């Protein structure tokens, strides 16, 4: 594991160096897409993956659910691959070049790429797909990320040009696989196209959809005309929905499934002693946070938010909720800390200081503390022990938390309505600071500013971070932003939990991507 981590850090630094150049990656990186290759890999076999969540639908353009992204990345592809080292590697593109003023990007496309429908991909399909996605009227959650795009041109069959209203250094990382993909031109002319995507896949990915039976299984089969030679190795991948972690553990023991991802280490401990299964830990690009709505009761006062931050012992919260299987963080997800983070010691409000917290509360007019609701989301197992621990910790400075559990749909409504109050949150990112921060913290209307922070300097920095392409300058901008974020505490980022996978010994070479998505199945294989 250590060797793996060191390797990733080295790649991450190499990635940063590449970002300084106008070109981002080359097709020579192809071997690194979807994880390391295994020379012993053999074709054939079926793998079954157990999952606690099921995609509500498979449309990559109009479904934000993480459960959808996890699986759809195997069927649909964007222009780039979000390598968790932090570099955008060419996927359907082969190269990227930014104009000196940063206001246009030219992408060369891979030739001979086939859609699952049998058609050959051209620049017209790419233009059509991203035009569809960026038109907000089509309801894509990814439209906001492309708001700076003014026009997309297709001057040649294998060239597309994105013209921007203002520069965006994160554009290649935006054109990855979270939202949208390249699909055949005019696919959406059919008004039922979204639901058609539950019956057929029309992407260019290594697997194509065989059967999606909601509430039961999702089956994908090997795409014979896939453009990466020799991939994928598996003939078929089945995703089965399971009711809870215990059922997944039993299914692994009985070899009913070959792979499962677990959110709590407690659930995998028993499996560590079982012969024939392997438990693995992977660094993640997710973060567990406490969000503080700057429009909510006492949290409106920055001193109150600072006092809460000063009362929190993040390590204790992490130990209670995920048994220490993660990394305490300051203001950056663990997987991006080396490249973009600020050392925790250099950030304000990171160490427990109860006296200062009490003083701040008194100055804010709460010498005896106050009562506040702290919400957790039903089904997010880590939040409940974290909530109890935090309630104990902030009680030491007089803040009395009433823990309330709410259903995910209700939570999303509150979040989107910017009425989140004092709540836990669990979010991940594609590995670029602009994609991590912009939407969440840029003041409206450019950003969503879910926490009603409305901070002028922070917004200015987020704009500049998007515009500047020099990595050193970008880093300096995000360092300043993170210091403000830590000081003002509209959110308290606590820890990144490791991703835990358990696989049967017969499933080989599965690499877990830091986002938690199943990219690694493209290179996994089954030993006889």
């Amino acid at each position: 594991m250590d060797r793996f981590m060191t390797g990733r850090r080295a790649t991450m630094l190499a990635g940063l160096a590449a970002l300084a150049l106008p070109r981002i990656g080359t097709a020579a990186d192809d071997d690194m897409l979807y994880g390391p290759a295994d020379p012993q890999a053999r074709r054939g076999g079926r793998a079954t993956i157990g999952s606690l969540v099921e995609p509500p639908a498979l449309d990559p353009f109009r479904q934000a659910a993480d459960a959808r992204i996890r699986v759809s990345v195997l069927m649909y592809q964007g222009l780039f691959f979000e390598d968790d080292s932090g570099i955008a590697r060419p996927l359907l593109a082969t190269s990227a070049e930014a104009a000196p003023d940063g206001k246009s990007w030219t992408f060369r496309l891979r030739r001979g790429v086939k859609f699952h429908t049998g058609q050959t991909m051209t620049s017209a399909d790419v233009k059509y797909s991203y035009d569809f996605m960026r038109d907000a009227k089509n309801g894509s959650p990814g439209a906001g990320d492309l708001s700076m795009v003014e026009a997309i041109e297709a001057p040649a069959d294998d060239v597309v040009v994105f013209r921007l209203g203002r520069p965006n250094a994160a554009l290649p990382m935006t054109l990855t696989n979270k939202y949208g993909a390249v699909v055949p031109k005019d696919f959406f002319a059919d008004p039922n196209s979204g639901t058609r995507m539950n019956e057929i896949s029309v992407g260019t990915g290594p697997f194509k959809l065989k059967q999606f039976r909601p509430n039961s299984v999702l089956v994908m089969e090997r795409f014979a005309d896939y453009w990466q030679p020799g991939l994928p190795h598996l003939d078929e991948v089945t995703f089965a929905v399971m009711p809870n972690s215990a059922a997944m553990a039993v299914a692994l023991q009985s070899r009913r499934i070959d792979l499962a991802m677990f959110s709590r280490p407690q659930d995998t401990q028993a499996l560590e002693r079982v012969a024939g299964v392997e438990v693995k830990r992977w660094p993640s690009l997710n973060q567990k946070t406490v969000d503080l709505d700057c429009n909510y009761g006492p949290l409106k006062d920055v001193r109150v938010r600072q006092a809460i931050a000063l009362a929190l012992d993040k390590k204790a919260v992490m130990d209670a909720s995920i048994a220490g299987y993660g990394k305490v963080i300051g203001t950056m997800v663990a997987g991006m800390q080396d490249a973009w983070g600020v050392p925790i010691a250099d950030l304000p409000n990171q160490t427990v200081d109860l006296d200062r917290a009490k003083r701040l509360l008194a100055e804010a007019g709460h010498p005896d503390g106050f009562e506040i609701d702290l919400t957790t989301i039903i089904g997010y197992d880590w939040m409940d022990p974290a909530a109890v621990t935090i309630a104990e910790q902030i009680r030491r400075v007089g803040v009395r938390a009433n823990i309330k559990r709410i259903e995910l749909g209700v939570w999303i409504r509150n979040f989107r309505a910017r009425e989140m109050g004092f709540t836990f949150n669990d979010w991940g990112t594609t590995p670029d600071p602009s994609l991590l921060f912009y939407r969440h913290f840029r003041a409206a209307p450019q950003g969503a500013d879910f926490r009603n922070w409305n901070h002028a300097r922070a917004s200015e920095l987020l704009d500049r971070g998007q515009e500047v392409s020099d990595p050193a300058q970008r880093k300096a901008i995000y360092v300043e932003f993170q210091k403000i974020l830590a000081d003002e505490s509209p959110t308290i980022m606590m820890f990144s939990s490791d991703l835990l996978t358990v696989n049967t010994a017969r499933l080989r070479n599965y690499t877990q991507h830091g986002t938690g998505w199943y990219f690694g199945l493209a290179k996994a294989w089954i030993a006889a």
Partner: protein
Amino acid sequence: MLALIAQRLAASVAAAALSALAVFLLVRAVPGDIVGQMLGQTGGDPTAELALRAFFGLDQPIHRQFLDWLGRTLTGDLGTSWYQGRAVTTMIWDAFRVTLELSALTLLISTLIGVPLGVWAGIRAGGPVDTAIQGFSMFGLSAPVFWIGLMLLVGAAAVFDWSPPFAYVGPEEDLPENLSIMILPVASLCLLQAAAYAQFVRGLMVNELRRDYIRTAQSKGLRPYAVYVVHALRNVLIPLSTFIGLILVQILGGVVVIESLFSLPGLGRLILSAIQGRDYPVVQGALLFVVLIAITINLVIDLLYGVFDPRLRT
């Protein structure tokens, strides 16, 4: 009798109408909607949200939405699922067939096992056979269905190196495959139901065998078969028939858990996932369907009372 039928039918129609309204309002009373689910933690430009809201008709006033839905429902059109794009009636029927098969098999097998066990225990009351059967009942009634299901999965894999397939296949498509999918879920549910039957029938038998007519039959020198089966069991069957109704309700409750555990795409899971996703047409249609089943069962029972009890007919 006709008056009774007319009265009960009118009451059922009124109940169905009220249920339709309640279902419609309850579904919408839960905060959050499909648009929020689709867009997740994204935001900023409200265009996407407005466009999606208009697409799903959520921009219309609520009474308008209700009347639209009611109008279509009355013509038998429950709409299409917002996520799947399939007709809700088809989705309900597909899911109901799974639930129905699971329930029917469970009812049949648990009756065939539980009733004879109860009779046997009743006849041998106080003996070792009775103790063993009561032990079985105690275990079956106290072990959670979910746990039984898990243990059967582990056991089948350990002993036979076998696990049921994940992808559901209907009995008409491939009967052996269907049965291999159904065997463990049915076995899990049967244990509880057979135990409940055995316990209930044993009590009835013990009571019945103490009655005078049994002593008379025995003293007349009738063969044990005639005493137990022809006389005692026949009298036990009357209360048993009402008990079967209770068992059916219990099975339908347990089915939701078992459907989850064994990844069976039944009615319980359909409703649950539709609620979580705020897929209103599916939730409304499926809940209304469940309500109509309940109303129909009640109507049939009411009418059967009329058949059994002449006083109700006037």
